[in-house]
């Protein structure tokens, strides 16, 4: 463990996995989720800081998406409690979580294909009285709000470079454009905490740059951001805080520069190569190694029979 940094302005006390924050927006305790014999999430304690951009990183299968699903009510934990702005949110249905201001996007995009891009956006808005079955029948009751949210949607679409597409079916968008649409749609409700699952996967570098600026802007407007990302440049560039998950657990957290040099993090990412120097990685022979792993797996299977 690097002992150089022990305190941080966001942290109340010493920095370390599960450390207390000065002003946490989400506090989770003892959250576990198993799939059969596999423990996908096993988070003892974690706090997400308010008014900050927090990155959640970790290798494939670390449990990041599952943890997102649990926090937002899309999956049910085996055990655990968590609160958002001081209110317990455990076992609250997903739509209520969203109404409380904790809005998420999905790693595998969920654009509503046979609705136009603009309709997708409008669906993200809140307080539209026309969404009630009875008021829906009388247009004057909801057309004012519709105008207001349409203006807002168009402004967001312009920012995300999707305005020319607003009348097209969302199904006609490219993969990257769908990511952008989903992020823009989530912003329609002015969330308190926005949770982005790999927002930049498949988005071209130039646009990524401008979106990073946009995310920083969200923070300055008072929003808190939690995002999952594999691109370490992006993590380093915009996050104030980084939480590292591996095999379901929070194994490290801290400011980006410190975390990326943390042996526990390197260990989590590189697994078997933890003895190897990062510069030495080319020396390992992945083919031979894969064969060894496959042989072990076969032996295990035989033993099981």
């Amino acid at each position, binding site marked *: 463990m690097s002992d150089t940094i022990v305190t941080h302005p966001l942290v109340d006390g010493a920095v370390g996995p599960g450390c207390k924050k000065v002003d946490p927006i989400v506090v989770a305790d003892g959250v576990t989720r198993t799939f059969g014999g596999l423990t996908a999430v096993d988070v003892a304690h974690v706090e997400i800081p308010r008014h900050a951009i927090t990155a959640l990183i970790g290798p494939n299968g670390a449990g990041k998406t599952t943890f997102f699903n649990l926090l937002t009510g*899309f999956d049910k934990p085996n055990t655990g409690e968590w609160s958002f702005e001081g209110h317990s949110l455990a076992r609250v249905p*997903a739509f209520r979580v969203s109404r409380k201001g904790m809005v998420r996007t999905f790693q595998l995009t969920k654009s509503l294909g046979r609705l136009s891009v603009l309709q997708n956006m409008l669906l993200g808005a809140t307080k539209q009285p*026309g*969404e009630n079955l009875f008021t*829906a029948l009388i*247009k004057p009751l*909801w057309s004012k709000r519709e105008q207001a949210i349409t203006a807002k949607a168009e402004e967001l679409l312009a920012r995300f470079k999707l305005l020319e597409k607003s009348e097209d079916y969302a199904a006609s968008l490219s993969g990257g454009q769908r990511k952008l649409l989903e992020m823009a*749609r989530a912003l329609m409700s002015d969330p308190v905490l926005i949770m982005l699952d790999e927002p930049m996967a498949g988005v071209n570098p130039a646009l990524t740059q401008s979106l990073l600026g946009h995310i920083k802007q969200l923070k300055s407007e008072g929003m808190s951001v939690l995002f999952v990302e594999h691109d370490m440049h992006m993590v380093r560039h915009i996050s104030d805080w980084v939480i590292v998950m591996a095999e379901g657990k929070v194994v490290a957290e801290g400011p980006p520069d410190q975390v990326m040099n943390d042996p526990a993090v390197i260990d989590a990412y590189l697994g078997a190569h933890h003895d190897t120097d990062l510069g030495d990685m080319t020396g390992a022979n992945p083919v031979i190694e894969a064969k060894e792993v496959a042989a072990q797996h076969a032996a295990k299977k035989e033993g099981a029979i």
Partner: protein
Amino acid sequence: MDWGQILDTAAGELLSPVTAAYALAAIGIGVHFGYAGLLNFGQAGFMAIGAYGFVVPTLLFDFPVWAAFLTSIAASVLFAFLLGIPTLRLRADYLAIVTIASAEIVRYVVSTTGLTDVTGGAAGLSGFNGSFTALNPFADGIYGFGPWTFTANQLWIRVVGWSLVAIASVLVYLLMRSPWGRVVKGIREDEDAVRSLGKNVYAYKMQALVLGGVFGSLAGVIYVLPRAVQPANYGTTLTFFIWTMLLLGGAATIWGPIVGAMIFATLLTLSDGILRGLISADIITFISGTQAGQIRFMIIGAVLMLLVIFRPQGIFGNKKELSFNV
């Protein structure tokens, strides 16, 4: 064979109360499937509930027509809740299985001998139309022209039936251009996405199920008003007829269910007339009249297969919507 007569009967079918009932029921599953993405394969069940909900109180308790309409609607709302509460949280296919089974249960229940005093058993019920005809505002006489020549009573049921179709269509039009319709269509595309945006997906699905079910029950009432209730009519065949009409016209469209029902009903009568005409004129000798009744379904089936292959979006549907693999 008398071509004039055959065409006359087929054209008359365009405006018949049965066609109006088909159209209403198709509008109902249009709301379910076309807009909300709910697979209701039990629309015949909703129609049966509607028919018995109207007829039983009329016969047993002398309910006036308006009250019988209300019990019919209330019964279908109840039925929709019964189906929806356990299944709407599950994946779409489960609703399909539950609705198809429930519709059969309804049919078996109303035809059981134990309930003969209430439902008339397998023979069904008749003689309930008096209070409805008593309300007829049209004076005795002959109305209309050509194939659309009606007696006062025939005109009355057609006016009521097609007015209900018009009201249902306007209602669906108003709802589907509203933000409510947007949420419902969003649920059809991906309910988790809609949930993540703070909408109570379960409540919207329930509302859509109830709405389409109520249209189904009204269809059931219009279906039986000019005749008697017979449980045998409410089999799965009826449900699939209605699905055919909906897909023929276009599922998520306003005119689709109406025109689909008209075409279907007319084709059914026309093919029947032609086949029977050919048999009685000894042009076709290898099939009997009863067989002809079944053969026309085969012909219609083939026509529909061609339609689905070459125009899968239906007559009014938007081809562009289908070009995406969503």
